[in-house]
């Protein structure tokens, strides 16, 4: 600069002084020219050195910038950047490398070699790979400097071989400081000298682990999707908008029996479908293509094995802004599901029908209708088996409305088939379902003509069973050709099980109704009143006769307490009332009583009460009664008659007896001996006649139940004593001794009647005892009563007569008690009395000599059916 300034001053001076005044000074002019040139050269030099300096600075700045850039790149780079020299010593190690490998830069640079960064033998392995990748003729490249580390040789050769832009990345595993390894993509390049010789290697490596993982996950994900499609039971296909198959999963292929390439060769969605469904399939595709989501559209196909399958088709379209991209189809095989549903539905329908209908025919018709509806048939018939006739005939027929089935119906209705004959007969005899594919051609189907006329093509028949027995057959016919479907027949057979039970039940119900009707008829027409009583003694049931007799309506009587109804308060009965007692205990009872009508009037009844016991528990009772007013009146009349007859017989006897007695005593004049004898006979027989009249009357009244026993607690002892006393005169006159033991026994009995028994037995005993023998009365108490025995030492009774002597007018033998004035009724009367006490009377032989007459009386009187507890007056009181 300064030089320049001086030069410039010099130039100016020169110029000032060099102004052309004269030519004298030419050397000044040369000098000036020379000075100018020198100056110019100086300036030029200055400028050029200035420029050089400027360039240098620029260059430095550039270098600085590059270095900074270099630094930023290194620092910020994601990938690792590692450089090494030919010996393998690391001389560059960027922060990314620090991160990834776990070494700090100062720990790596100058300290580590390349080999430290890789797992053992990794460098060698990859080196071999690289070597193999290189063209052969370049193997021994002279460019490789001899100082290259062995391990780096292949790498150096590699980068030396290819220009930088052509060096491919390769994978290598790096080893971290902690020994773990990871994959990385390595990009190698050479550090060259200015001469172009390789001085070192630079590695840029990108961690592949994340990438690897992502790749793996993606592959996994792809695999999963693939797996789903490939293994799906659902049939999946994807098509282009033009209808070409892009993808078909194995299930789809199996459906149509074609493989992937075959599908790809098709030109339309509908192509693989059977002809009858093609139009439908094409329509579905079009719908989907135009944006409609087709969901669960039912399709019926035959699959590649020829089986009928039912499909649910779902189609939809994948769209982008450009329009439809693909059409996806998913088919689900719902054949089994549909079958199950049909089976359940038909079972449900039939169950409902059976549960609802009361009429069997109506129910069966509805069942046939339901079967046809479910299985697309148009005619059905139910044939019932008549075991007694060995035939099967149609009971119900059903035909769908619309097309005429008249001819077929007519043919069906007229048939009566035997076992094995015709379709129903065959099913009956085999007990198994039967299918006819083509009715028109079947050789043994006898309704071919009707079938042809009315258009029936296929049919099947199924047995209806109850237990093991076939009671009916159901047959259905279709106007389509339907191939044999064992599943359908199995379903219908199951349903027919219910139908069989329904028919059996309906039959049973009909029988029950019939029995009910019969029962109602019987109960309504019977003349006796029948009253059903529940366990709480309320009336549960009344028949018309009972209602009539009680003068109330049936509804009024139901629910009433039975005893209060029959014996209302005005009856005035107390705790001894037999009827009340019978209803309170669960015992049966029968006898006579007085019931009261609704209008307050009473009437005599003969009743029988039967308790009902179920499983040991009383559940009520049944009372049957009949109005015996008539009979009572009749009995009354009979009583009157007997009474009258007795009176009428006695009256003349009085005269006879009186006259004979007086005559016999000789009070009316002397009588000869013979006459006396005869008179004595006459008197005796008159007496006997009187006794006979008494006995007959007695027995008649007792056995007819008109002689009520009056029970009270009595001392048997007293009674025996009384009897003995009464018979003493007779015993004395026969010279027979009477003996009795004393036994303090009390029983419930009718004293007068019992006395009658004792005197009777004693009288017999005395009559048949020889003089100076003893007649003994013995009393023995037992757990439930007492046994009285009259023992004599007389003639005794033969063994074969021991039973019969208690019958009326029985004689033991020729010389019997009648000769001794007996009536022949005494023992019969005794028996009646004892039986009315609820006891027993019997006779035994007294060892070798004599007889023993026993009678047993229970401690508490239990009534025989015809005994009455109420006294006669009480009874008559009730009758008002």
């Amino acid at each position, binding site marked *: 600069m300064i030089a320049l300034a001086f030069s410039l001053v010099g130039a100016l001076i020169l110029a000032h002084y060099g102004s052309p005044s004269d030519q004298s000074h030419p050397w000044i002019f040369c000098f000036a020219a020379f000075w100018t040139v020198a100056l110019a050269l100086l300036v030029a030099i200055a400028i050029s050195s200035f420029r050089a300096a400027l360039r240098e600075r620029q260059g430095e700045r550039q270098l600085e910038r590059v270095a900074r850039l270099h630094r930023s790149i290194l620092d910020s780079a994601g990938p690792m950047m590692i450089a090494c020299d030919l010996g393998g010593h690391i001389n560059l190690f960027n922060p990314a490398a620090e991160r990834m490998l776990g070494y700090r830069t100062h720990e790596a640079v100058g300290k580590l070699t390349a080999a430290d960064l890789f797992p053992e033998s990794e460098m060698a392995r990859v080196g071999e790979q690289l070597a193999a990748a290189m063209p052969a003729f370049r193997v021994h490249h002279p460019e490789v400097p001899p100082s290259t580390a062995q391990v780096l040789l292949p790498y150096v050769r590699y980068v030396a071989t290819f220009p930088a832009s052509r060096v491919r990345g390769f994978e290598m595993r790096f080893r971290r400081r902690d020994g773990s390894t990871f994959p990385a993509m390595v990009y190698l390049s050479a550090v060259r000298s200015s001469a172009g010789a390789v001085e070192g290697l630079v590695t840029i490596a990108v961690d592949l682990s994340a990438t690897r993982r992502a790749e793996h996950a993606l592959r996994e994900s792809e695999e999963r999707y693939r797996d789903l499609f490939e293994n799906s039971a659902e049939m999946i296909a994807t098509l282009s908008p033009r209808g070409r198959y892009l993808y078909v999963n194995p299930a789809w292929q199996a459906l149509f029996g074609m493989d992937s390439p075959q599908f790809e060769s098709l030109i339309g969605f509908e192509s693989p479908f059977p002809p009858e469904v093609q139009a439908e399939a094409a329509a579905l595709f079009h719908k989907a293509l135009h944006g409609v989501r087709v969901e669960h559209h039912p399709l019926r196909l035959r699959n590649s094995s020829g089986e009928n399958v039912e499909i649910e088709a779902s189609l939809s379209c994948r769209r982008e802004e450009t329009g439809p991209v693909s059409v996806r189809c998913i088919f689900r095989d719902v054949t089994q599901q549909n079958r199950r549903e049909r089976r359940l539905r038909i079972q449900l329908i039939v169950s409902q029908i059976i549960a609802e209908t009361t009429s069997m025919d109506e129910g069966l018709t509805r069942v046939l209708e339901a079967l046809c509806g479910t299985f697309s048939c148009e005619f059905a018939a139910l044939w019932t088996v008549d075991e007694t006739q060995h035939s099967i005939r149609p009971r119900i027929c059903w035909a769908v409305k619309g097309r005429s089935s008249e001819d077929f119906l007519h043919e069906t209705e007229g048939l009566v088939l035997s076992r094995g004959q015709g379709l129903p007969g065959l099913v009956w005899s085999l007990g198994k379902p039967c299918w006819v594919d083509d009715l028109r051609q079947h050789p043994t189907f006898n309704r071919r003509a009707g079938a042809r006329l009315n258009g029936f093509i296929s049919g099947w028949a199924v047995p209806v069973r109850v237990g093991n027995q076939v009671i009916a057959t159901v047959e259905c016919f279709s106007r389509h050709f339907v191939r044999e479907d064992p599943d359908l027949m199995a379903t219908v057979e199951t349903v027919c099980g219910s139908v069989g039970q329904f028919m059996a039940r309906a039959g049973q119900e009909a029988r029950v109704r019939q029995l009910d009707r019969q029962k109602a008829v019987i109960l309504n027409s019977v003349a006796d009143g029948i009253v059903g009583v529940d366990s709480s003694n309320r009336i549960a049931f009344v028949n018309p006769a009972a209602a009539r007799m009680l003068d109330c309506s049936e509804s009024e009587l139901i629910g009433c307490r039975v005893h209060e109804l029959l014996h209302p308060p005005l009856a005035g009965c107390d705790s001894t009332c037999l009827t009340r007692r019978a209803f309170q205990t669960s015992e049966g009872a029968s006898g006579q009583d007085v019931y009261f009508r609704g209008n307050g009037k009473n009437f005599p009844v003969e009743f029988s009460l039967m308790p009902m016991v179920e499983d040991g528990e009383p559940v009520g009772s049944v009372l049957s009664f009949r109005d015996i007013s008539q009979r009572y009146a009749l009995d009354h009349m009979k009583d009157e008659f007997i009474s009258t007859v007795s009176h009428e017989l006695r009256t003349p*006897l009085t005269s006879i007896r*009186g*006259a004979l*007695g007086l005559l016999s*005593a000789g*009070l009316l004049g002397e009588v000869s001996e013979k006459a006396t004898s005869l008179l004595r006979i006459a008197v005796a027989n008159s007496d006997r006649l009187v006794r006979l009249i008494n006995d007959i009357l007695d027995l008649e009244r007792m056995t007819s139940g008109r002689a009520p026993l009056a029970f009270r607690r009595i001392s048997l002892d007293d009674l025996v004593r009384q009897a003995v006393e009464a018979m003493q005169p007779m015993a004395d006159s026969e010279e027979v001794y009477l003996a009795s033991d004393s036994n303090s026994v009390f029983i419930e009995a009718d004293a007068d009647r019992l006395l009658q028994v004792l005197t009777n037995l004693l009288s017999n005993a005395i009559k048949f005892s020889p003089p100076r023998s003893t007649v003994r009365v013995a009393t023995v108490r037992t757990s439930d009563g007492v046994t009285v025995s009259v023992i004599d030492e007389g003639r005794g009774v033969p063994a074969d007569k021991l039973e019969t002597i208690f019958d009326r007018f029985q004689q033991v033998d020729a010389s019997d008690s009648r000769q001794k004035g007996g009536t022949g009724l005494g023992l019969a009367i005794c028996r009646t009395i004892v039986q009315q006490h609820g006891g027993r009377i019997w006779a035994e032989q007294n060892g070798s000599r004599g007889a023993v007459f026993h009678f047993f009386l229970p401690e508490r009187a239990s009534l025989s059916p015809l005994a009455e507890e109420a006294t006669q007056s009480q009874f008559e009181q009730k009758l008002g």
Partner: protein
Amino acid sequence: MSRRVLIIDDEEDIREVAALSLETVAGWDVLVAGSGAAGIAKARENHPDAILLDVMMPGMDGPTTFRELRSLPETADIPVILLTAKVQAADQKRFSDLGVVKVMFKPFDPLVLAQEIAATLGWQEI
């Protein structure tokens, strides 16, 4: 002293036999009547010591006759014994409820008839 007894019975034969019995056996004075009405008349007239009264008679029967006798002052005190062929228990109760002294049954033993009557009425003689 001889007792006087009135027998009222519609049967002639019984009247005769009964009368005969009482006369021959006991030696009593016996009156007879064939109906209730006749009997009452006779009783009023003769005032017997006892009356033997039948039950079954047409017209006025025994009980009715008895009630009538009781209602008349002349005859009210005469003891009455019923003599009847109606021997049934119910009848007996009915008769004894009337208020008669005793009920005796036909046929009777003619030899003891008087005895029984005397015993019932407390007559000492036999």
